[in-house]
């Protein structure tokens, strides 16, 4: 899966492209964990180019959220399409992220 990386001001932005399912989630996990282990605490996952997410994707984001929580921070998620937002809603995941 293609995952774009950008540093915008103090934020580190990851923009995955396409589907985040059990097949592609490990790639997102590797990249996200590398960014967090590198000490970034202002992390944004931009969903602009994501058209699908399964529980495998949520699992990776939760792992990231748990790491950031130890630093007293919330992971930021942006540009979620309505159907993707619905997946976060039914999972009870909206409160653990800062969603814009």
């Amino acid at each position, binding site marked *: 899966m293609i995952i774009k990386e950008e540093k915008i001001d103090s934020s580190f932005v990851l923009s995955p492209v396409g589907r985040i399912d*059990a*097949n592609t989630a490990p790639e997102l996990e590797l990249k996200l964990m590398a960014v967090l282990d590198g000490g970034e605490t202002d992390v944004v996952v931009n969903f602009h180019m994501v058209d*699908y997410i399964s*529980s495998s994707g949520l699992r990776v984001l*939760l792992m990231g959220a748990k790491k950031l929580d130890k630093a007293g921070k919330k992971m930021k998620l942006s540009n979620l399409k309505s159907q993707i937002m619905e997946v976060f809603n039914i999972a009870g995941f909206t409160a*653990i992220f800062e969603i814009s």
Partner: protein
Amino acid sequence: MPKIEINNDLCELTHVADFIKNVSAKKNIPESVIFDINLAVDEAVTNVISYGFKDELEHKIFLTLHVEENKIKITLEDDGVEFNPLLSNEPDLEKNVKEKPIGGLGIYFIKAKMDKVNYERNNNINSLILEKFY
């Protein structure tokens, strides 16, 4: 009846999604319904591929999609270990970030998104039957 046969390899998930999309597009099924079916089937297939087989061999998983008036019925068949997803516990969605367990949402998504879920085990075959009204 539209049918697809896949191997027990997670890279097949995109083929499953394409299959559902192609069949549904011909029947004018709403986008949100297609998304829900895709999510439920994706979670079910992921579980079978990830946990269903105790050997390293190639296995086939069969998926049929039957579109009726206002109802879609999906049947998933595999020769993996017996597993009835209806017997799994519901996750506690209220837990905070520290308490939330990693994983365990897939089967909950299937139950949340489908109107009917049935499981049968016959002749060493798991059959999961999902129904969605629209």
